[in-house]
């Protein structure tokens, strides 16, 4: 039971004056993922087989590595923005929400770093 007025309750701590960047970047990354995702799937399907040496040779060839790195970064970025929305939607407790958002951000950065490192290691490593 609170004696705070209804208007005071919905006013809360006021407008955060942000959210537009998050919303806009989520749209931009989703648009970017359409060609990147299609390219990734089509390129893999076009390979004669999907064993390690064939895929590694594909990663080393031509422009594959930079586009693959872009795909990893944009994918992780988009996923982080999306998971943030899900957490904000469904986790009501402020402490849990803060923890979940922080952990999700860390996890996405770590995943992106591992992905980029993996691509670089294959692309710049020796052919053997």
């Amino acid at each position, binding site marked *: 039971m609170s004696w705070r007025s*209804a208007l005071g309750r919905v006013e*809360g701590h006021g407008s955060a*004056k942000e*959210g537009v960047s998050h919303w806009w970047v989520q749209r931009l990354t989703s648009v970017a993922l359409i060609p990147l995702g299609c390219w990734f799937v089509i390129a893999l399907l076009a390979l004669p087989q999907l064993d390690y040496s064939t895929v590694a040779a594909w990663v080393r060839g031509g422009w594959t590595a930079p586009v693959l790195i872009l795909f990893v970064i944009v994918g992780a970025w988009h996923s982080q923005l999306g998971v943030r929305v899900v957490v904000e*939607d469904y986790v009501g407790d402020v402490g*849990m929400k803060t923890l979940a958002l922080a952990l999700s951000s860390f996890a996405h950065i770590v995943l992106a770093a591992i992905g980029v490192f993996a691509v670089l290691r294959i692309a710049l490593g020796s052919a053997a």
Partner: protein
Amino acid sequence: MAQLRLPKDSRVNPRGRVHRAAASSASTRTLRIYRFDPESAEGPRVDTFELDVSSCPMVLDALILIKGTLDSTLTFRRSCREGICGSCAMNINGLNRLACTTSMADLGGEIRIYPLPHMPVVKDLVPDLTQFYAQYALVEPWLKTRTPAPPDRERLQSKHEQERIDRPAACILCACCSTACPSYWWNGERFLGPAALLAAYRWIVDTRDEESGERLDQLEDPFRLYRCHTIMNCTDVCPKDLNPAKAIAEIKKMMVTRRY
């Protein structure tokens, strides 16, 4: 975390009282209506009413007939009975609509009537709309200007400018849209909901208003505006055929374009 089950006192007993009109006829219909009395120790229940509805073209007529002949304690809001006051908004066969503009003939089988979803219930079909009205007040739904009004006439608009606010201004604040929105269910205290955002849009695009920027500032918030995930239940259920989802999308576009 999200609560998946209603608290014990809010769980609805599906087998409430049964009220039958004396004579049964071909036009007898069954209405199953949510009941809750805050002064009784009993939790909410669903009562069954069977009555001749031949004199009831609309659902509201049937409710009035029930109140007049079968159970005078049945409580609901109603006023204009022609879809302009928004009082009799309720959930009828799973959709939020106005009882006065919902035809009995359009509803097949048993008719299930509940209060608007996910709002505190005052009694029976009467939801507590305090928060909903506060959110409307928050968007300051009135003309704000710095330029003094012309001394000899009203502030003018072109026909085209008026047409932009024609539809949004037709909102009757029945709350069908906001209470149909899952985002509003989960975060109703912080998400303003489609009705308040439609009202905000109506003033943002009003060419006589001079505080569009301040209005956008007030809305720029991950919860107030961006909880809208374009589910579009709002537009689906609006009894006035308005499009709050589009208004919200327009606000989001303005948020982006004002930065470039």
